[in-house]
């Protein structure tokens, strides 16, 4: 390549990047593929800690050399066992270091890594393995292995299953299964027989090779695998480095599923560029404790998690002594006063700053330490809309929390607020290097090097997703203000046309409902109906607390949902939201979903969002009841 024709570069937080994002070739420290960057980082960082994971309650460190060696053995063993370049490998595991090692090992030898949610059922596993044509399946433990065993005859293309945790499986003797230790040994054997093979494989990768498949959660129809190339990911790294700076001494906590592009970016690819350390949460249940222990520098989560942390603080404050409660109230007031100024871009008056300084010393600093947010430079929220009040509360306690928008098809990033350029209630401005436009139908459309290659083995769907002139159709409706900030109002597919012929975007109403602390999620019904109604999933913890404080008797979840006072409270929340909408857009009736749904249920996505189609089908009787 002729050096003079390459785009000029700058250094951001110690990483060389193209000065103007969005230009080819996308280079991160001169590397043009993920695996090339991986090789470079492992060579230069060696014994520095790349990952930390808890083992019997003690945090253990794993270096970049460990990262390199294991990925190497994985890659070589996969090739030895018959993986060809361009073939897929599925990973069915909770977040752990091996997940990331496999991600790198697979990509380094030209494979395509595809994540499967641990909450998926055996039949979903079958679909995902067959659709991706996976030759190998990585399972975490016996529970996940059993899903494979249930469908083993229906996944003929699968060569081998590799098991990470052998607990309870010592006497397993299955021709298609292999334990991880045996698998590493095989890799080591290949390494001695054929030194330099792994490095040669890495050198064969090109920026246009597909590196990973991300199956979209698919609220309608079967999941589709979005193909992301090395270039796509490097473009996302580039956007991230410009808009969401990460430092080499940062600590991070990885807890959202790595199958999801958001966590994958934040916990695998961004740290690869930024050289920072990633800590794996023990389990989804221990996130809050792990957060305290790690006290990360940046923390990206879904609104549900931010909401939970807020609720916990509220509950603690309510149960505190009167003096403690008063101090908390005043501290939040001082914090909000300061936050309002910052968020409006105005200078903070000296009096407000002094108040905040005082309450920060007395209350807020301790609160942040207790939450594990004392070192937090930036919090991020994505994957679902977050309430502005919640965002303000975090700013008030001294945690800068910003909202962004992205999807699998955009390698996770599309629009972002930044600490400096932040407009609350919007999802921010287009990421550096991207172009954005609103189509005549109001759809948000994007162009950029981070836009995916297409859906795996599904040209029809791919064609539908791009416009004739090559822009990505996000399927979201929204608008852009004069300063370039984007607001999303709903999904195109979800548009409801009432019997009166009125077009309504339910997402707008749904997200407003969700901002209530008592409502965890809502689905608006009303297509071809006379008026709108809602199915509502209550937030168990907050509603239980509500009921207890008001001495409302209940025994289990169903009786909680049946309590008249709870229904009245939800009605009040709906009335408050209705006020802001035109008459045809008002919710006239509602029902509570009185079973406690878990991620294993069909009605919920892995990120705990209600799936419209399933909810409408499963709770049809509730819906019919509202239109009697």
């Amino acid at each position: 390549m002729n050096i003079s024709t390459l785009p000029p570069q700058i250094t951001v937080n110690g990483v060389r990047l193209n000065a103007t994002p969005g230009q080819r070739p996308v280079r991160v420290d001169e590397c043009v593929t993920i695996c090339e960057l991986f090789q470079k980082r492992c060579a230069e960082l060696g014994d520095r800690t790349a990952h930390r994971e808890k083992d019997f309650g003690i945090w253990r460190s794993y270096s970049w050399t460990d990262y390199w060696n294991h990925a190497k053995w994985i890659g070589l063993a996969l090739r030895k066992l018959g993986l060809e370049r361009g073939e897929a490998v599925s990973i069915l595991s909770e977040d752990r270091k091996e997940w990331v090692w496999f991600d790198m090992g697979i990509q380094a030898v030209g494979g395509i890594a595809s994540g499967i949610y641990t909450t998926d059922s055996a039949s979903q596993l079958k679909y995902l393995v067959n659709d991706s044509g996976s030759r190998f399946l990585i399972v975490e433990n016996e529970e996940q292995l059993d899903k494979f065993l249930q469908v083993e005859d229906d996944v003929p293309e699968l060569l081998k299953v590799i098991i990470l945790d052998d607990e309870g499986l010592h006497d397993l003797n299955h021709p298609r299964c292999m334990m991880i230790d045996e698998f590493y040994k095989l890799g080591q054997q290949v390494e001695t027989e054929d030194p330099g093979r792994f490095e040669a494989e890495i050198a064969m990768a090109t920026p246009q090779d597909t590196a990973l498949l991300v199956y979209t959660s698919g609220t309608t129809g079967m999941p589709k695998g979005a193909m992301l190339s090395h270039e796509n990911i490097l473009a996302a790294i580039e956007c991230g480095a410009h808009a969401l700076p990460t430092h080499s001494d940062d600590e991070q906590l990885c807890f959202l599923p790595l199958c999801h592009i958001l966590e994958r970016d934040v916990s695998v690819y961004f740290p690869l560029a930024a050289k920072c350390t990633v800590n794996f949460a023990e389990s989804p249940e221990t996130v809050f404790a792990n957060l305290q222990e790690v006290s990360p520098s940046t923390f990206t989560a879904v609104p549900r998690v931010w909401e939970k942390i807020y609720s916990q603080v509220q509950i603690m404050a309510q149960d505190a002594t009167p003096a403690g409660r008063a101090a908390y109230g005043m501290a939040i007031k001082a914090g909000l006063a300061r936050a309002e100024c910052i968020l409006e871009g105005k200078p903070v008056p000296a009096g407000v700053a002094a108040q905040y300084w005082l309450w920060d010393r007395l209350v807020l600093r301790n609160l942040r330490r207790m939450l594990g947010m004392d070192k937090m430079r930036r919090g991020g929220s994505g994957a679902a809309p977050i309430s502005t009040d919640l965002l303000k509360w975090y700013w008030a306690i001294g945690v800068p929390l910003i909202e962004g928008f992205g999807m699998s098809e955009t390698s996770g990033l599309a629009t972002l607020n930044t600490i400096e350029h932040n407009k609350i209630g919007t999802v921010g401005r287009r990421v550096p290097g991207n172009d954005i436009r609103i189509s005549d139908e109001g759809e948000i459309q994007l162009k950029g090097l981070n836009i995916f290659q297409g859906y795996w083995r599904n040209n029809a769907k791919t064609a539908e997703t791009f416009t004739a002139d090559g822009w990505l159709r996000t399927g979201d409706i929204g608008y852009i203000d004069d300063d370039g900030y984007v607001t999303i109002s709903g999904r195109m597919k979800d548009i409801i046309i009432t019997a009166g012929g009125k077009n309504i975007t339910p997402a707008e109403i749904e997200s407003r409902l969700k901002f209530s602390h008592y409502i965890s999620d809502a689905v608006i019904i009303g297509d071809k109906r006379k008026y709108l109604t809602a199915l509502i999933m209550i937030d168990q913890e907050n509603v239980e607390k509500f009921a207890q404080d008001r001495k409302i008797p209940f025994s289990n979840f169903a009786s909680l949902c049946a309590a008249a006072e709870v229904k009245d409270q939800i009605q009040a929340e709906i009335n408050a939201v209705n006020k802001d909408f035109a008459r045809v857009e008002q919710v006239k009736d509602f029902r509570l979903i009185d079973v406690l749904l878990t991620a294993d249920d069909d009605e919920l996505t892995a990120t705990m969002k209600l799936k419209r189609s399933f909810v409408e089908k499963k709770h049809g009787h509730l819906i019919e009841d509202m239109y009697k």
Partner: protein
Amino acid sequence: MSEPVLKIRNIESFYGPIMAIRGVSLDVHPGQIVSILGANGAGKTTLMKTVSGVMDPEKGKITFHGEDIQGSEPHKVVQKGIVHVPEGREVFPLLTVDENLSLGAYTLKDKGQVDHDRDLVFSYFPILKERRNQEAGTLSGGQQQMLAIGRGLMGNPKIMLLDEPSLGLSPLLVQEIFGILKRLNDEQNMTMMLVEQNANAALELAHHGYVMEVGRIVMDGAAKVLMQSEDIQNFYLGVQEEGARENRRWKRKKTWR
């Protein structure tokens, strides 16, 4: 259905700063046996202690025959007809069987009533009559449990709170004691609230069941319905789910529906 004799509403009890019961509500109807199931630390015993007045709830209401009793002194609660048969038998080892029984009738003044109650106890537990002059400490475990229940009966209770009567007993003895409890319920129309780990025996005996987990009720229903629940079968009745593999060790998540 008739008005419940015992109504518990949103009870919260603490051990120091630790919340052991987080808002429990339940009903016991006259003549009913209600079982409370749950693993160790679920708060079952705490709930019993809160009802009998040994512990005071931080929040919530307990009504017995329409009268608020939460936070009452234990002896007042006993006088109202609520008898608590504690976990681990707790008989007075150095007193004789007779003396133990007399202590159970401590609140009664009427001598004739006491003699009648004693005869009743002996009719249900003939072995206690045989050993009436023996020190309670020298009885076998099952006999001590019988004595503890018998002592409870002596107070002429309207409701008995039984805390793990099967604890440490052989299966045969459990059968025997539960048989007697059933007879007491059938013949004397005795209302009972029963805490048990032996879910099978408890659900066989009870009319209604509640399942507690970490201080909350997660499921309730008629005992027959509970026995059919997949969660109850898997987690309390030891029914092994059909797995893809022999020797499966993991269990699916509880959903309580």
